[in-house]
């Protein structure tokens, strides 16, 4: 049952990811990326991480992709539609990508530690409560650093995108 759902969502994620890279129009890429993020959030639910699934939908689908679509609306994408890929020979990049993928897959499937079918350790109780306790006790400093980075990015984005410079 789990495996069927996993294969369904994984196939959806791979197909929509290919659509992102192959689509001619950036709007189609953005919509396909949104669908891909939804599939990945379903996979997070299969991994028993419901908090991450909801955060994925809120942040990626709700915020980041809407930002992308706003920028696509603001700028003229018609001239970039004509040619999808970089001009010239793309063979070295393709060879590099195939080598990368084959290498990672060989490493995964030749290692016996990664072929576990059941969780090596199980956990019980209220998982989201334990997660937030860990996040706000052991990882409080990185959390605050992340909030400062977000504030800096907010100010920086406003300054960068401003029309007139003082």
């Amino acid at each position, binding site marked *: 049952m789990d495996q069927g759902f996993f294969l369904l969502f994984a196939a959806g994620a*791979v197909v929509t990811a290919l659509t992102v890279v192959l689509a001619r129009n950036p709007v189609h890429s953005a919509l396909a990326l949104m669908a891909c993020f939804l599939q990945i959030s379903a996979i997070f639910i299969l991994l028993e991480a419901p908090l991450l699934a909801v955060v994925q939908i809120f942040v990626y689908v709700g915020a980041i992709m809407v930002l992308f679509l706003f920028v696509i609306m603001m700028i003229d994408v018609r001239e970039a539609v004509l040619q999808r890929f970089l001009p010239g020979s793309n063979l070295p990049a393709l060879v590099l990508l195939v080598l990368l993928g084959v290498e990672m897959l060989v490493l995964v499937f030749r290692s016996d530690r990664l072929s576990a079918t059941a969780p090596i350790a199980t956990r019980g109780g209220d998982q989201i409560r334990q997660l937030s306790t860990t996040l706000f006790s052991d990882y409080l400093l990185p959390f605050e650093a992340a909030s400062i980075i977000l504030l800096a990015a907010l100010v920086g984005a406003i300054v*960068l995108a401003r029309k007139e410079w003082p």
Partner: protein
Amino acid sequence: MVPLGWYISLSVALFVIGAAGVLLRRNILVVLMSLELLLNSVNINFIAFGHYHADFRGQIFAIFVIAITAAEVAVALGILVALVRNRATLKIDDITLMKG
């Protein structure tokens, strides 16, 4: 129960597709979207390993990755809007001001 290797294979597939988008596409918007795909494939790995070892740190790292990605996208799109306003191009092979 789904084996751990399946999740890692999915993440490898998404990583390779996203890297292909970064290396091969000409439109800077699609390059940025492919970067999102790369970061998401890494998140799948973090959460899968965290699940199979019953460790919350995988999920916590994934939360931080998502937060930093949001910051990165905001800055990148701000730079993109400023770039399009000044140079009026979206092709990455036209943007060679810094001779990279």
